[in-house]
């Protein structure tokens, strides 16, 4: 009755890290209640091959739903299948608050006639109540919210529940979809999967971000070079830069872009407007390079360097390469 269903997100036939994070967060609830975690994995035929990995990260059972119409995002059919399964006696549903997770969680909650506690950075379980911490007001206020609905529908902030090895049985059960997944009212006509080798902003422990101070789109090569020197870095941008088409909107960090919280954030030629800070102020260590010593970003930066970013970046890239090589 109290088992927890965790959404195992996949894209393009691969498991996303969000899948392991949702299993990890689901374990917090299940362990507090002496219950099991069941992961639910959707995809085109063959996706079931990833079930073992979910077991290794804490899933007692893996429900595999294979159908050609799950090759692309199919939120209507995914939500219908999960809501039907939840009716069979789960106490909670957990997914990561990624684009896909945020797309399905409210649909499932509404079908079950319950609210959703979104984007939780912490979870505490006491009896039938789950208390979540959730950043609101553009990250400036932490809300502590009590969820008393049954079942509980929760999404967790990417990066807040880091996957750990926690081997459980991972018994595989194949189940069928609810309704016909090919009959969704919303048709996906094209998916650009992006560069699979590229680290996503949400996953990268290091983010190098560029702003208008880079002067021209071509200079983003300097930012990419520094990211490559780190090896575990993704590239972000300000709205000034995505507006000008130098970078895609999906690279934008801030109030109306992505919210990120990496170990290291290097802001290159970024003024530090409040809407940008809203997306990165919780980064662990912040470095800023800006030619204006009064730029607001320096109020926040652990390490500020005043100067021309176009001149400094190649030197920094060389020094990082050297430091990496020296171990």
């Amino acid at each position: 009755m109290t088992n927890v269903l965790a959404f195992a997100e996949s894209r393009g036939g691969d498991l996303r890290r969000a899948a392991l994070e949702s299993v990890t967060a689901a374990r917090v609830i299940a362990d507090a209640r002496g219950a099991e975690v069941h992961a639910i994995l959707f995809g085109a035929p063959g996706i079931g091959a990833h079930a073992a990995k979910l077991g290794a990260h804490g899933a007692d059972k893996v429900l595999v739903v294979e159908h050609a119409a799950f090759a692309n995002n199919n939120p209507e059919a995914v939500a219908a299948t999960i809501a039907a399964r939840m009716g069979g006696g789960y106490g909670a549903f957990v997914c990561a608050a990624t684009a896909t997770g945020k797309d399905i969680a409210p649909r499932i909650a509404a079908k079950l006639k319950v609210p959703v506690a979104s984007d939780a950075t912490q979870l505490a379980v006491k009896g039938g109540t789950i208390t979540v911490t959730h950043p609101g007001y553009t990250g400036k206020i932490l809300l502590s919210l009590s969820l008393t609905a049954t079942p509980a529908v929760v999404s967790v902030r990417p990066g807040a529940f880091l996957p750990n090895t926690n081997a459980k049985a991972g018994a595989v059960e194949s189940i069928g979809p609810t309704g016909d997944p090919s009959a969704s009212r919303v048709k996906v006509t094209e998916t650009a999967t992006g560069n699979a080798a590229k680290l996503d902003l949400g996953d990268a422990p290091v983010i190098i971000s560029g702003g208008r101070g880079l002067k021209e789109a071509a200079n983003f090569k300097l930012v990419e070079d520094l990211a490559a020197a780190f090896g575990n870095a993704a590239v972000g941008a300000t709205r000034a830069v995505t507006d000008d088409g130098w970078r895609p909107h999906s690279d934008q960090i801030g109030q109306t872009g992505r919210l990120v919280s990496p170990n290291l954030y290097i802001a290159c030629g970024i003024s530090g407007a409040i809407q940008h800070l809203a997306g990165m102020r919780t980064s662990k260590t912040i470095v800023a390079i800006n030619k204006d010593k009064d730029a607001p970003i320096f109020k926040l930066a652990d390490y500020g360097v005043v100067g021309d970013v176009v001149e400094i970046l190649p030197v920094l890239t060389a020094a990082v390469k050297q430091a990496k090589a020296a171990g």
Partner: protein
Amino acid sequence: MDVRFKLAPSGKAVDEAGLKFDISDFDGYAVEAALQIKEKLSTGEVAVISLGPDVVQETLRKAMSMGADRAVQLKHDGAPVDSFAIASALAAELQGGGYDLILFGRMSIDTAHGAVGAMVAELLGLPCINAISKLEFEGRTAKMRRELEGAYELVECTLPAVVTIDEGIARPRYPSLKGIMAAKKKPLESKPAQLPEARLTLGALSLPPERSAGRIIGEGIAAVPELVRLLKEEAKVL
């Protein structure tokens, strides 16, 4: 300028003294997108709806000064955080309204659930496309672009439908003086919101830990060796 919020003494609300209320970012984009559709089709009506205390009348007037034709306030004096309760009250009002397209923001700025739009769609039995950054029509087919992490998808759907709006659609226009005058005469209907019992409630608010004050470590390329040393030895990120 950095804005700092203060908490009310109860610890359960934001101190609203000195705060100016405005349409939230994504809702501004949604209002603008709706107005552009109406202008392009040269027909139709744009209605705006908000659930909240009387201060929301200001935002509804602003939307009408941008060009919306009429407004509805579902009056509620608390600050509900239960997304399902809010969605139920909105859906009850929207039900039977004959709307071809219902636009929401991708998320609100205060509670930031990113949930209400898709919930209303479920309650009304309409298809929902979340977080769209482009919207075009071919007859009654909407063609849209959705942003994912590091990727996007193109999707299609027949009206009526619910969409939630990401950045990229349209920047909200500034109301003209003429628009502001006209808005004063446009209908704003206020009626009580019918909210079911809340099962997601606010316990407490807190401010995130302050960052220590920033520090400038040097100038130009001469500062690079010291930066790398600090990243390695102090921050331990290299």
